[in-house]
């Protein structure tokens, strides 16, 4: 099942105790010269998409070719996601801690010559304060980072995720070794229960209680018991689990092994979404390395406890994020959910007691065991402890991964850490919880981001996507978007979901075409209630949320579509027209060249006009115009 990557050699020194682990750790630390330059290049999905692979190659090539003194020859590391995706590719230079943004392969020569050889920063690559324009040198000084509390993300972007030694150097597997040596399985469960940790997958069920439930089930009906990682992160706009698996795979693995020890499981599964090949690769490497070091497999650290795990790649089905569908899929079948009247801690995989936790939840476990439940529960709010990693995306200046204590107000995340929206105006709404969540309007921007406050607002934590919307985003359109998404992703087993979501979407289609009736809103709400009450799994029961919250908070906008046949945000195609402002148009012909209907005419260097009869409102002219001359009416 290995994909044949042998780039990383594993020193197969089997570790047999906590002492062995500490010795190895000391050896790694001693061997490392903290004053020697190191170049950390972000190799997360966002930066790869932005060209970071070319940057890595350039560093390797130029360092090999350049005449650099061995003492300052930099170590080059490809790391996991460093967080500020909108400014990628990101490069971090140690020991100075310089933070370079938007680095291109052509910048590498300069970095080597100036920073590595002469110890000077390359000014143009530094982050600039958006208000003062002043360059900021280090990550710690940038508000985007300094306002966060990075616990789960602490090592992501700082270590090479394909090296177990990098992980051991920063304290990896200490919690496991400690637990195996000094704690009984019951004590591990108790510690997790006392920490107040709640599942990061969306619903926020207390993790400790889930584990206790599984133990009770084992007592009642016997084993085996399985532990499973839910890495089927499907919420569009959410990539925090991806970043954790890619950037710190050993954290997930260590958490899983600790869980297995606590629950007495000998077999585990990591179910990972099809679209995350790099996460699969890094976890495969992590498992191989952990096995070689005696941290996974038979007789872990000579403790007598044995556990191994396998990776199942998802095959493209959002519904498999639902626990029972995920189990069905691991069993090799079509991932349709099963009714959950018997909890999966009692009857999960192959009908046996099973503990399924989300990637981020598992990554929290080593921290809780290492630092204790009291430390953990001192972060966040009494009912939602710890931190949460959010993906801040959409119409916001700083797009990327954000980790803050639970209960942090939305405005702090969007306006302070995120730097507000590009137009400088207040944001219109934040969509949380993906297709199961809701749209929270600006007037509720002080809502704390924790499980219960979000549920009270009609939204949901979900896996942690925060999609920022501005005045050019239409709530009817976003409602349609999520309904269409779920229609495509519904497994089709139960009728409320398979037929009901289509009916809801068709009503919204009518709104966006200006054909809605006022009584349709009531129909929608009543039908939504039937779907919430009647659907078989959480995909269906939560599916009406995005639509219902937009009706609740943005009723005026719905009424504008229904009563006035207007789309105030200028999105719904059938309710808008495009025109060109003759004063702003320079006659550059960019739009005319790209118009698929050839309906933009005019002489070069003179204002152009759009023939409204032929226009299909594809929006290409609006997207293309550099002079803001295209208007939406």
């Amino acid at each position, binding site marked *: *099942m290995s994909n044949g990557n042998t780039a990383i050699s594993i020193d197969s020194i089997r570790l047999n105790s906590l002492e062995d682990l500490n010795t190895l750790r000391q050896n790694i630390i001693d061997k490392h010269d903290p004053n020697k330059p190191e170049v950390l290049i972000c190799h997360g*999905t*966002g930066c*790869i*998409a*932005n060209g970071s692979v070319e940057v890595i190659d350039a560093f390797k090539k130029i360092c090999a070719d350049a005449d650099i003194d061995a003492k300052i020859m930099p170590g080059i590391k490809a790391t996991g996601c460093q967080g500020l*995706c*909108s400014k*990628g590719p990101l490069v971090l230079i140690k020991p100075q801690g310089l933070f370079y943004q938007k680095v291109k392969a052509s910048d590498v020569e300069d970095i080597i010559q100036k920073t590595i050889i002469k110890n000077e920063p390359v000014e143009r690559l530094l982050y600039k304060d958006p208000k003062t324009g002043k360059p900021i040198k280090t990550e710690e000084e940038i508000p985007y980072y300094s306002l966060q509390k990075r616990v789960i993300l602490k090592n992501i972007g700082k270590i090479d995720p394909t090296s177990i030694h990098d992980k051991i150097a920063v304290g990896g597997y200490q919690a496991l070794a400690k637990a195996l040596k000094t704690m009984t399985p019951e004590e591990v469960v108790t510690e997790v229960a006392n920490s107040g940790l709640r599942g990061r997958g969306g619903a926020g069920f207390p993790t400790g209680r889930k584990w206790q439930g599984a133990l009770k089930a084992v007592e009642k009906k016997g084993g085996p018991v399985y532990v499973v990682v839910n890495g089927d992160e*499907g*919420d*569009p*706009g*959410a*990539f925090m689990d*991806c*970043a954790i698996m890619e950037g710190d795979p050993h954290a997930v693995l260590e958490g899983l092994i600790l869980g297995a020890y606590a629950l007495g499981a000998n077999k585990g599964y990591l179910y990972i979404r*099809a*679209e*995350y090949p790099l996460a699969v690769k890094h976890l495969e490497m992590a498992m191989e390395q952990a096995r070689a070091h005696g941290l996974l497999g038979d007789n872990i650290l000579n403790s007598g406890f044995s556990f191994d795990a396998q990776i*199942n*790649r*998802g*095959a*493209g*089905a*959002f519904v498999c994020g639902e626990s029972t569908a995920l189990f069905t*899929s*691991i*069993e*090799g*079948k*079509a*991932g*349709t959910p099963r009714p959950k009247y018997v909890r999966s801690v009692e009857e999960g995989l192959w009908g046996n007691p099973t503990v399924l936790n989300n990637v981020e939840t598992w990554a929290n476990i080593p921290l809780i065991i290492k630092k204790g439940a009291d430390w953990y529960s001192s972060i966040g709010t009494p009912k939602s402890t710890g931190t949460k990693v959010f*993906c801040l*995306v*959409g*119409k916001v200046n700083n*797009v*990327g991964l954000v980790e803050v204590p639970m209960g942090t107000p939305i405005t702090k995340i969007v306006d302070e850490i995120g730097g507000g929206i590009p137009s400088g105006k207040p944001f219109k709404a934040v*969509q949380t919880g*993906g297709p199961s969540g809701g749209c929270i309007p600006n007037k509720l921007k002080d809502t704390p981001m924790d499980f219960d406050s979000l549920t009270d607002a009609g939204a949901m934590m979900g896996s942690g*996507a925060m*999609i920022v*919307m501005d005045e050019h*985003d239409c709530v009817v359109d*976003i409602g349609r*978007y999520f309904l269409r*998404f779920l229609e495509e*992703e519904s*497994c089709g087993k139960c009728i409320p979901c398979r037929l009901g979501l289509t009916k809801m979407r068709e009503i919204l289609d009518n709104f966006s075409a200006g054909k809605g009736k006022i009584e349709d809103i009531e129909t929608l709400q009543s039908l939504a209630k039937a779907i919430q009450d009647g659907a078989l799994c959480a995909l269906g029961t939560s599916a009406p949320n995005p639509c219902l919250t937009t009706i609740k908070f943005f009723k005026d906008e719905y009424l504008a579509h229904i009563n006035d046949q207007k789309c105030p945000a200028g999105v719904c195609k059938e309710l808008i027209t495009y025109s060109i402002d003759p004063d702003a148009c320079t006659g550059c012909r*960019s739009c005319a060249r*790209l118009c*698929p209907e050839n309906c933009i005419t005019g002489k070069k260097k003179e204002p152009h006009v759009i023939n409204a009869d032929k226009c299909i409102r*594809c*929006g*290409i002219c609006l*997207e*293309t115009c550099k002079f803001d001359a295209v208007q939406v009416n």
Partner: protein
Amino acid sequence: MDHQVEAIDEILEHYPEEPEFLIFLLQDIQSAYGFISKESMQMVSDYTGVPITQAYSVATFYQSFRLEPIGEHELRVCLGTACHLKGGQRIVEELERKLNIKAGETTEDMMYTLDTVNCVGACALAPVLLADEKYETNITASKIKKILKKIESK
């Protein structure tokens, strides 16, 4: 066809003869051949003991499986929420017009397959297009023109 049978036999041998490995096998066959043929599905069914009816049911349930050969170049437009807000649908429509096919289809000359995908996790660079595994970011209509030109000149 015989050499393919042998090659598929080799894929089968990586896994135990158990029903739970059906999806693994279909995935490996698809990554080797780009799609799952009738014959190879029958071989997987015989090997794992899963009736062909169930294997077909599984293969059609999951979005990533293809039962038809795909075009030489695969264009996948991300329609995650961030990409939607930033015009992902516009990109799909423009490609549909340019290639004269609908999303999910392959051009007659087997040159292009156009598809959509739910969020690839590169939301900072929305809208995103995956052209043969290469991320093309902040896509606009004029960029599409260039990307297609680049592919065709290869």
